[in-house]
């Protein structure tokens, strides 16, 4: 950004559009929204870290209930993991298409992302239902309380993300690719990748560690 553009920005930052930047960074309000979302993700990291800490403290307190060995089914978990990791990849492609100003490509990959996300949520729900049928509810033991709340919080985040991204897709369809819709899509992308990272931790510290 050259000095002249910058000077103009100080005067009128919310309406000035700097077209030399990627679409989502073109206005000052957009840049603030993206920074704000990074700060929100920082808070989310603390939130999940607290849940992980709780889980690690309680993870061996079975109170006579089922243990991870009796409960976890690694095959289902692997499929969930692949679905979510792939969705993160397709989300990356969607943002790449957005930067190429390819609206159709963006929408296609975004919808694929959400379908994969839906598949993940569906599998997770059926996993939970299966556990409950086996008599492993969140009231059974401290281990299961922390298991269900940690995974439930993640699953709820993914579900909210799907609903939220759907609204953004509608807005892209209605308004096309503008700095505003591009910013919203970019932020959804950040959120989606973040949830993926959290899942990697869940996969490692909940499932793998539980089965070792």
């Amino acid at each position: 950004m050259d000095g002249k553009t910058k000077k103009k920005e100080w005067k009128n930052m919310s309406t000035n559009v700097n077209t030399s930047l990627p679409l989502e960074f073109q206005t000052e309000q957009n840049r603030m929204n993206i920074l704000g979302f990074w700060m929100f993700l920082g808070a989310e990291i603390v939130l999940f870290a607290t849940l992980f800490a709780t889980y690690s403290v309680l993870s061996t307190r079975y109170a006579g209930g089922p243990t991870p060995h009796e409960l976890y089914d690694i095959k289902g978990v692997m499929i969930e993991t692949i679905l979510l990791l792939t969705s993160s990849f397709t989300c990356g492609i969607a943002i790449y298409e957005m930067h190429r100003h390819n609206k159709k490509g963006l929408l296609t990959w975004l919808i694929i992302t959400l379908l994969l996300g839906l598949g993940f949520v569906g599998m997770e729900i059926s996993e939970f239902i299966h556990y409950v049928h086996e008599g492993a509810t969140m009231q059974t033991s401290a281990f299961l309380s922390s298991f269900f709340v940690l995974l439930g919080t993640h699953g709820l985040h993914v579900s909210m993300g799907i609903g939220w991204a759907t609204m953004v897709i509608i807005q892209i369809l209605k308004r096309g690719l503008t700095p505003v819709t591009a910013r919203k899509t970019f932020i959804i992308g950040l959120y989606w990748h973040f949830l993926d990272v959290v899942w990697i931790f869940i996969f490692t510290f909940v499932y793998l560690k539980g089965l070792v």
Partner: protein
Amino acid sequence: MGIKWDRFFITGDPLILGSQIAILLTMIGIVVLVSYLKKWKWLWTEWLTTVDHKRIGIMYILVGVLMFFRGGIDGLLMKAQTATPDGQLLDAQHYNEVFTTHGVVMILFMAMPFLIGIMNVIVPLQIGARDVAFPQLNALSFWLTFSGAMLFNISFVIGGSPDAGWTAYFPLAGKEFSPGIGNNFYAVAIQIAGIGTLMTGINFIVTILKMRAKGMTLMKMPMFSWTSFVTSIIIAASFPILTVALALMTFDRIFGTHFFTLSGGGMDMMWVNLFWLWGHPEVYIVVLPAFGMFSEVISTFSRKTLFGYKSMVGSIVGIAILSMLVWVHHFFTMGAGPGVNSIFSITTMMIAIPTGVKMFNWLFTMRKGRIQFTTAMLWALAFVPCFLIGGITGVMLAMGAADYQYHNTLFLVAHFHYVLIPGVVFAVFAGLYYWWPKMFGHMLNEKLGKLHFWLFVIGFNMTFMPMFFLGLNGAVRRAYTYSAESGFGPLMLVSAIGAGILAIGFAFFCYNIYWSARYADRNISSDPWDARTLEWATASPVQFYNFAKIPEVTSLDAFWYMKKKNKGLKFSNDELEEIHMPSNSGLPFIMSIVFGISGFLLVFEWKIAALVAALGILICLAIRSFDYNDGYHVPVDEIKEIEYGWQNKEKGVEKHVN
């Protein structure tokens, strides 16, 4: 759903019956008054839907004043109960409820709204911005705080107050030992307010990082903005812990999980850890902005630039880091062993170092300054010795081995009141006397202010100084009564009388607000204190767009040097441009009501109904997502008119400071 209607309204206690009638009459009174004055539309358009940071700040401060009153009544009740041995005013249960709500209300609904309110009004002005980064989110933050405060406050007439202490330790706070719904109010109401606070933190981080006026580097930023910035970071880093802790508490109480219970493998001390992992940083969240206010007030009224600016910044950052590393000192008696206790003793004592640096900086700022003894400055002066007592007794408590003796006694209670009242309440009063003209266009009366000051400070010392000695003599906290043989009677009585004096002091403050609103001189300068920072470069009260032209900053104390060099303050009309402003929105208000309703239903464990109400929150979020209102532009002619109006007034103003 098994609603126990007989437990819905609390009955049988004359004090609570009186409150119920008083609340009902007040509500009817407000509705009648607003209707009579035909102010409903004004209330909606000017306040309930506003996104203006100054108005949101004023509403926060109003909540703070009201909650100070409520928490203060709780405090007075406790003092009246323990004024004499074997007091009969309250029974044990009622006393438990009163000290619980006193703590929660004072920390979360008095201190926080006061400080965030002043941050809201002042920080954007100090950094030369037109609003915060996310004005509508800011409104939502306020309304969620409000909603949480109201939900918490109705607990004592509907359903029953929480009674497990403001720390709500398990297993006492669990369903097993507190089967009523009182502690549900604790879990849900604080959750709602906490979400609002978290968003405030994020909002101010972005505002301060991205919206400073040209030339204002971080190291040229006024100290209050610095402390607000660091506070916002601590908020973002610690409030999610509270969110999780309260959510787990809610799960334990309402959905039968086993996080903190005695049965099912739960671990009660984990609550204590999580609570203080948030709770200790919270202490610094409230005290850092207060330090910032003292810095501004002391610098202005000593007519000197702040001494040791860089070391001030270093110490607040140091305090912020240390604040995360000391939480175990709240429960040395848990039995974590000498190794753990020693580490946390050392980190706790280390906090005294940056705090001491700040103390000396304030003293050196005053040294050789021409000190003006305004009311605001008096609060800052009284703060130094009082806070010192609080700090030094804090170092005493920090010693793990000795803490076994002080733990759970009135010594501790005296300590944290000596930290929080000078550290926060004095600061808030100093800030209000100092910035009142910016908010309302008139000053608070200095004579009444000084009466308020002396009564409050004397009352405060008289209330809490005896508690140190009572505690050392073995008087435990949270005990609703004691015997005459214990010998606590005389000091307890002194303490109770002190509380009365303190309350009279606060009454003078309220009267001062009323008196000044009616009679104070409106013909005052926009810079009545001859101050140093950019907020004083605006009109009093501040024009809604803050700055007609964003000033350029070249140094610390920017406004002071602009005045001295007579440079950068005036601008010609052709430099003006249209100003972009955000539009008002009713959504934050409506959303917080939905939050409140959903929370209320959850408190009563009507889970399905609460879930249905929570769908309303999602609908509000969806509406917000589809909202493309991009604000409006203020035309140049309107700016010219407003600027001409206040800048020309400056010539014939009355001086009120000498």
